[in-house]
């Protein structure tokens, strides 16, 4: 028989609907219930899909945008020069900062002559779009390298992340430098 267009099943799941009378056993409904019970009990012993979040973390994709990091260069100095382009480009207006001038003797801390004295991101406002990352001329802010989520908190104040939470820890910067050499 020539296969008409109605009989083709690309997924292999197509089922012909029939309006035939149900048999006695089908009408009893009990067989169907037992079949259903067997299906559900199979799921009881199946491996669970849950990832136990705080203890177990799902692997991030290389481009996943999570918590921001303010980067240090290979000598451990902060890249950020507080130009404010990230704050300007931020569509959610989540970033604020206050610039300060680098004093003598602070050359090992800050790369440029101007640096961010205060740098705050309100994580409740942030939409993790990554525009700050794109706008940054100094290669300072990244959402992809921390590989962390912003965890839940009880107070709104706790979502305002300052430099203490954002700047890349020195140990990480040192490890990165060692990897380069």
């Amino acid at each position, binding site marked *: 028989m020539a296969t008409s267009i109605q009989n083709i099943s690309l997924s292999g799941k197509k089922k012909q609907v029939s309006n035939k009378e149900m048999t006695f056993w089908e009408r009893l409904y*009990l067989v169907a*219930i037992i079949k*259903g*019970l067997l*299906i*559900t*009990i199979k*799921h*009881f012993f*199946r*491996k*669970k*899909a*849950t990832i*136990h979040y705080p203890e177990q973390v799902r692997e991030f994709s290389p481009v996943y945008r999570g918590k921001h990091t303010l980067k240090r260069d290979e000598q451990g100095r902060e890249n950020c020069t507080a130009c404010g382009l990230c704050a300007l480009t931020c569509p959610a207006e989540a970033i604020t900062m206050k610039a300060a001038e680098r004093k003598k003797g602070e050359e090992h801390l800050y790369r440029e002559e101007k640096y961010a004295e205060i740098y705050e991101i309100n994580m409740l406002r942030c939409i993790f779009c990554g525009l700050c990352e794109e706008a940054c001329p100094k290669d300072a802010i990244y959402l992809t390298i921390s590989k962390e989520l912003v965890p839940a908190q009880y107070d709104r104040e706790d979502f305002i992340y300052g430099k203490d939470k954002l700047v890349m820890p020195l140990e990480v910067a040192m490890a990165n430098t060692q990897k380069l050499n």
Partner: protein
Amino acid sequence: MDSALIIEKSIFIVVVFAVTMLMAMYSTWAERKVAAFLQDRVGPNRAGWGGLLQPLADGLKLFAKEEFEPNTPNKFLFFVGPGIAMATALITSAVIPWGDKLELFGRTIQLQATDIDVSILYVFGVVSVGVYGIMIGGWASNNKFSLMGAVRAASQMVSYEVAMGLSIIALLMMSGSLSLHDITVQQHGMNWNIWYQPVGFLIFLICAFAETNRTPFDLAECESELIGGYHTEYSSMKMGFYLFAEYANMFISSTLISVLYFGGYNYPGMDWVGTNWGTNAATLLGIGALFAKICFFIFFYMWVRWTIPRFRYDQLMNLGWKILIPLSIINIMITGVCILAFK
């Protein structure tokens, strides 16, 4: 009546009460766990090992919640509703034989609060009073949805009680006694009633689902239509009482199914255990057997809940009046013929 008997019975009643409460508490935990496992999840696992302290946390939460009262003219009835639901759920356990005799301190203790010779009638009486808890609560809430849930619950329970009673009659014709103790003793070893009354068991099981307002017959509190049914307006521990009563009812009905059709505390090889290890060991194993059966049926309640979708109201009434009642009458007739022919 000597004072030792009174003390003995009091202690036993307190133990049964505590066990019922404990089972109801952990049924809530088991419900969530079973629901999760059947849906490929893991369920509560933060409070205690495997979430075992979850019921305590839930109870504490319910106690600490604000107690909201709707502006109802029936403040008293609003207050009484959950009480009735809870009380009726708890007093059914008085006539259930939890085990055989236990020999302690030179006394023979019958593990049954009271062995009245109309136990089944008593159970049915108490169960029908249970409707009042829901009805009064729904009525006094002064809320359309509550009232609708209450009316549904009442009509559902009344119509399924008929089929339930008729299915029990076939069993009573065989046992010749209304006492749950006698019925259990007659099912010695593996001589369980389920082998003789499979259809009666099926009817009783379906009716038990309807009586306890469990899915697929949970029309009284179906969330998708009635928000929460009769307990929509309840909060805090009053709400907790309703939920608790539901789980206590589930425990008691599982017990009744086990006692009536699955031999209660009887288990195969109980005579051998009795002669070789002593009466007490046999009795304790019997209690274990009864609780294993109860736990299975509680699990079955939850298993069915996540398998079968809710009935429509007309389907429910059709099933009750047009199928189960005629079926149970036919069952009675066949049982009568068989008794005449084989005894």
